[in-house]
C-alpha cells in the first residue's frame, strides 16, 4: 500500500535538459516564474507555451508525468477559476439568480488558471529532469555567496539531501510497523476521528524511536568517515559550466526578450 506511493518526481532519462547544469536550471526556472507574472495577455502565453513545449520535447519526459504534477493543485485551480469567474464585475454574459458570469470574469478566470498551470508545469520540469542530489548541490552552490551573512549553505543542502534520502526509508518503516501492529489486532481504518487518532499511538511511538535510531546511526556513520561540515570539503562531482549550458543561457535570454517584446509592442 504505502510502498506504492511514487516518491520524488525525478524521471530518469539522458536528455539534453537532464544534463544541464542544475544551477542554471534553478536560475532559469526562477526567471521563468517571474516572467509569467509580466505577461498581460494571451499572446504572451503563446510564447510561454512554445517554450515549455520545446523544453518538454527535449527532456523526453512523457506528457502524463508532466500532467501528474498538476493533480495535487487541481482544486486550487478550480477554486481560483470559479472565484475569478464569479467575482469580477463587467459585461454580463450569463445570469441565474445571484450567479453572474461576466466577460471580464471569464477572461480573468482562464488567464489566472493558465498562469497557475504554466507555473506548476515549469517548476515540475525542473524537478522531473534534475536528480534531488544535483538539485541540492545546485542550491548549495547558489547559496554560497550568502555564507558571508551567516547563512549555513552547506548544512542546509546536507539537511535537504538527508531528508530526501530518508523519506523512502521512513515510509518503509511505517509500513512495517503498521503491519506488525495490525498483526496484533490494531485497527487503523475504522472508527471516528478521535478513535483513529488514538489508534496512531502504536504507530507513531515506534516510528519516532526508529527515526532517532536511524539519525544516530547515520550521524555515527558520517563521523566515522570524517564528516565535519562544509569547511574545506571537496566534491566528487564538481558542477561544471559547459558549452551547451552557455547555449541554454542564450535560449533563455531569447525567451525573456520575446516575452518582454510581446508585452511592450503587442
Amino acid at each position: 500500500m504505502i510502498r506504492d506511493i511514487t516518491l520524488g518526481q525525478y524521471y530518469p532519462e539522458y536528455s539534453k535538459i537532464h544534463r544541464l547544469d542544475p544551477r542554471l536550471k534553478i536560475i532559469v526556472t526562477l526567471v521563468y516564474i517571474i516572467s509569467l507574472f509580466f505577461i498581460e495577455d494571451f499572446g504572451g502565453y503563446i510564447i510561454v507555451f512554445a517554450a515549455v513545449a520545446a523544453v518538454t520535447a527535449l527532456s523526453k519526459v512523457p506528457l502524463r508525468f508532466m500532467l501528474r504534477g498538476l493533480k495535487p493543485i487541481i482544486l486550487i485551480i478550480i477554486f481560483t477559476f470559479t472565484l475569478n469567474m464569479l467575482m469580477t464585475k463587467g459585461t454580463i454574459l450569463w445570469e441565474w439568480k445571484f450567479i453572474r458570469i461576466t466577460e471580464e470574469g471569464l477572461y480573468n478566470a482562464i488567464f489566472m488558471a493558465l498562469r497557475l498551470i504554466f507555473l506548476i508545469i515549469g517548476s515540475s520540469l525542473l524537478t522531473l529532469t534534475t536528480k534531488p542530489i544535483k538539485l541540492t548541490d545546485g542550491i548549495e552552490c547558489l547559496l554560497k555567496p550568502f555564507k558571508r551573512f551567516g547563512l549555513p549553505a552547506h548544512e542546509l543542502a546536507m539537511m535537504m539531501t538527508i531528508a530526501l534520502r530518508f523519506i523512502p526509508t521512513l515510509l518503509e518503516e511505517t509500513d512495517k510497523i503498521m503491519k506488525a501492529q495490525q498483526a496484533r489486532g490494531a485497527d487503523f481504518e475504522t472508527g471516528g476521528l478521535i478513535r483513529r487518532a488514538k489508534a496512531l499511538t502504536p504507530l507513531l511511538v515506534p516510528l519516532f524511536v526508529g527515526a532517532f535510531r536511524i539519525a544516530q546511526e547515520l550521524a555515527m556513520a558520517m563521523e566515522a568517515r570524517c564528516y565535519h561540515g562544509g569547511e574545506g570539503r571537496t566534491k566528487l562531482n564538481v558542477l561544471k559550466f559547459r558549452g551547451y549550458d552557455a547555449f541554454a543561457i542564450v535560449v533563455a535570454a531569447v525567451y525573456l526578450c520575446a516575452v518582454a517584446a510581446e508585452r511592450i509592442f503587442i
Partner: protein
Amino acid sequence: MSITVEHLTHIYNKGLAYETKAVDDVSFTVGDGEFIGIVGHTGSGKSTLIQHLNGILKPESGRIFVGDTEITAKGVKMNEIRKRVGLVFQYPEYQLFEETVRKDIAFGPRNLGLSEREIEERVEESMRLVGLDFMTYAERSPFDLSGGQKRRVAIAGVIAMRPEALILDEPTAGLDPKAHRDILDMVLSIRDRSGNIVILVSHNMGDIAEMADRVFVMDGGKLLRAGSPADIFADEDYLKRIGLGVPPATRMANVLAKGGFAPDRTILTLDELAGFLASPSSGLRRDAT
C-alpha cells in the same frame, strides 16, 4: 487446525515498469501441530508469503484457508483471523511502544476486546512462556531492556493473543548465541505446551534441521521443494545453486563422504554427527585392542 494455501500469487508494484511477482503460484497444506521451516535467500518471497497467512497482505490471486475459514473471501473479520494466526515480524522489538512491558503485551489481547482479568492472565502467561519474570519486568519500560529481552517482550505480545498457529520471521536475527538459543528453546517450549502449528522462517539451516518437521524451499517467489529435513538437506549442490546451504553437521558429513567415510543416512545435527563418528561403521574409530 490446518492451513491450506492454493495457487497464491502476489505482485508488488502492479502495473508499473518494475512490477515483481513476489509470490508465484504457491500451494501447500500445513497439518495440525506441524512445525514448518521455510528457507530461501533474501528476496525469495518468504516474508511476503507468510504475511498472507494472517491477512496482512491480500493476494493477487489464490485462496488461503485457516481451519475452515477462507480468509481471502470477502467479508471475513480480520481480527478473527489475526487471533488465530499470530505473526512475529523480523526485528519485532521495533514495534514496542508502551510505557511498560505489561501494557505492551496487553495491546493485542485488548484489541481482541477481552476482559481486564483475562488480559492480565494472558500477560502473565505469555511472559512466563517467553521466560521473562513477571515481578521483575512487568512494570519496566520495554525500551530499557536488552535486545534479546525486547524481542521476548515483542513475541510475548503476539502469543498473548493465543494464536492457534505461530509464524516467526527470522526470530533470531541479530542476536548473540545465547539469546539465539534462548529464543529457539522458547519457540520449542511454546510449541510443546500448545501443540500448535509453528512456521519458522530462518537463514540458519542448523536451526531448521533441528526443529522442523518439514522444510519448504523458496526461490524467486516459487515454492520449489517441500519435504523432511533429511530429504531437503540431502541435496547440497541444489541448495547451493539457489544461494542456500546445509546445516554445519551435514556439511561436515558430506566432506567426510568425499574422503570415503560416507554415513548411511543424511546427518542433520551435531549429535547425529557425533553418533556417526563414534560408531564402528564410520571406519574412523580406532578401538584400542
